[in-house]
């Protein structure tokens, strides 16, 4: 559905026209029917990529296709829905007028426009607010009507820029449920985010972008499987100050909670050695929890590598 080849973007900023590279040779493919999560820290170039795909900015190098057509072809957008980051809309319009306006831009007939608008507003849970001006909408409502406008043309491909950012947990869940619903209908979704728990739940595949470079792509399962190192979290009690220090030297991180000491080990061997110390000093182990690697660990690791730290 989406294909990019060596997509690059350079900006000139400031008085001296200093060159800033926002995106370096991005080559990526999103397949039909999949939910692709585009991850990266702030400023990684996620929004830049989406803006290029939408024709809002022109890349300085490389090419991109959507549904097999060059993105410069305006007709590509007939089968496309887009929700920008932290969207602001025409606040002087009511929800109904707003939906009608976007329907007109696709040349949808009047009767169909009204029917689609009503159906979508119902889907995003805004049917109570059809005649309310958008300036009176809460942030969560704005986000939901943003999704509704992106779907007015019943698109095959939906591109969302940070759809969950700035929302409360309930708002996030609502957006996530809408995305799951679209996935069930066989739509392709490409979205950028830095909210990782959501990604694990809904994405088929993810790509990690750091400083304009794509560091990794794969299914969530593949990504997690690649994590060899297992974290071990161990809670101990009854240790003297010197023993705590000895354990601390082995651990990667240690905190004291009342009488308990909680230590984290990035190597099972080190955890075993720490256990020996605890038993030999007459201490006790309250709990021992092996941590499975999470997407967050991979993410943090890639960002660290990418930043050269």
């Amino acid at each position: 559905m989406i294909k990019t080849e060596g997509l690059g973007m350079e900006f000139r900023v400031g008085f001296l026209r200093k060159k800033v590279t926002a995106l370096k040779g991005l080559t990526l493919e999103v397949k039909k029917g999949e939910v692709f999560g585009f991850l990266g820290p702030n400023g990684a170039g996620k929004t830049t990529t989406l803006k290029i795909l939408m024709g809002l900015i022109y890349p300085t190098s490389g090419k991109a296709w959507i549904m097999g057509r060059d993105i410069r072809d305006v007709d590509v957008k007939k089968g496309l829905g887009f929700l920008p980051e932290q969207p602001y809309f025409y606040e002087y319009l009511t929800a109904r007028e707003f939906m009608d306006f976007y329907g007109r831009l696709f040349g949808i007939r009047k009767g169909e426009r009204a029917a689609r608008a009503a159906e979508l507003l119902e889907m995003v849970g805004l049917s109570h607010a059809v005649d309310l001006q958008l300036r009176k909408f809460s942030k969560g409502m704005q986000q939901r009507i943003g999704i509704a406008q992106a779907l007015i043309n019943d698109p095959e491909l939906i591109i969302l820029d940070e759809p969950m950012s700035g929302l409360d947990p309930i708002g996030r869940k609502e957006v996530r449920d809408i995305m799951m619903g679209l996935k069930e209908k066989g739509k392709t979704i490409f979205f950028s985010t830095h909210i990782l728990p959501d990604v694990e739940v809904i994405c088929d595949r993810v790509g990690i972008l750091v400083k304009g470079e794509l560091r990794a792509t794969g299914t969530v399962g593949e990504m997690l499987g690649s994590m060899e190192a297992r974290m071990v979290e161990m809670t101990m009690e009854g240790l003297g100050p010197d023993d705590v220090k000895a354990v601390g030297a082995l651990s990667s991180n240690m905190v004291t909670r009342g009488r308990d000491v909680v230590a984290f080990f990035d190597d099972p061997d080190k955890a075993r050695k720490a256990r020996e110390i605890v038993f030999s000093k007459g201490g006790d182990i309250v709990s021992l929890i092996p941590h499975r690697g999470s997407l967050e660990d991979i993410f943090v690791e890639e960002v660290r590598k990418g930043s050269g730290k």
Partner: protein
Amino acid sequence: MKVYSIALNTFKEVIRDKIFYSLVFFALLMLGTSVLLSTLTLGERTKIIEDISLAGVSFFGVVISIFVGIGLVYKELEKKTIYTIISKPIKRYQFLLGKYLGLALTLLVYVSVMSACILLVLYLSNGIWAGSLMPAVLMTYFEFLIITAAALLFSTFSTPTLSATYTLAIYIIGHLTGDLKGLAAKIGQPVIKKVIEILYYGLPNLENFNIKGQVVHGVSLPPGYYVMAVSYGLLYAAGILAVAVMVFQRRNFK
């Protein structure tokens, strides 16, 4: 259809905007004041009302053209609403043209409302039917079209403050181009003479649309004059819009 939708949306945007309301309010206030002022003068009561109300329509129309015009594109960029438009199957020129026509439509409504008010005021206060004033009001509309196009052009690449300054400069120079021609005739230095001549022909001559003096004093103008002035206004505005489209087409929306 697409251009029309954007124009209609822009029309709604402007008429639901406080700035527009307050400017129309002040224009009407000025009309009311002209009646009060006329009672203080001896003789020529009607002329006072005619002069002031025509000047008022023109002045506030220009203010609307400049201050609403510079915000048309800038607001869309600032609030990023343009993202949702450009991501639809819309060409950039269609967007720009829609924004322009939306304000042009609003100005047409403004001019119509003001005309009706002038006719009403003159009828009620002095009992005369001032239909002969209407050509002057209509001609200022074409001046608004040029000013709006200029404001739109500047706002595609500049900040609102600078755009307003540039557009205001165009408006002022546009009313003084006659003097430029006179200046060129007097200057002997050929290079400077040429530069002034280029400025004279390049900048809009907005005095073409100022026939207030003639209508108030009952001087009739040949139909050919109207045809020429209207064609000039439309062509000039179209020219500015073409440049605006070229600038806008190349722009990255940050």
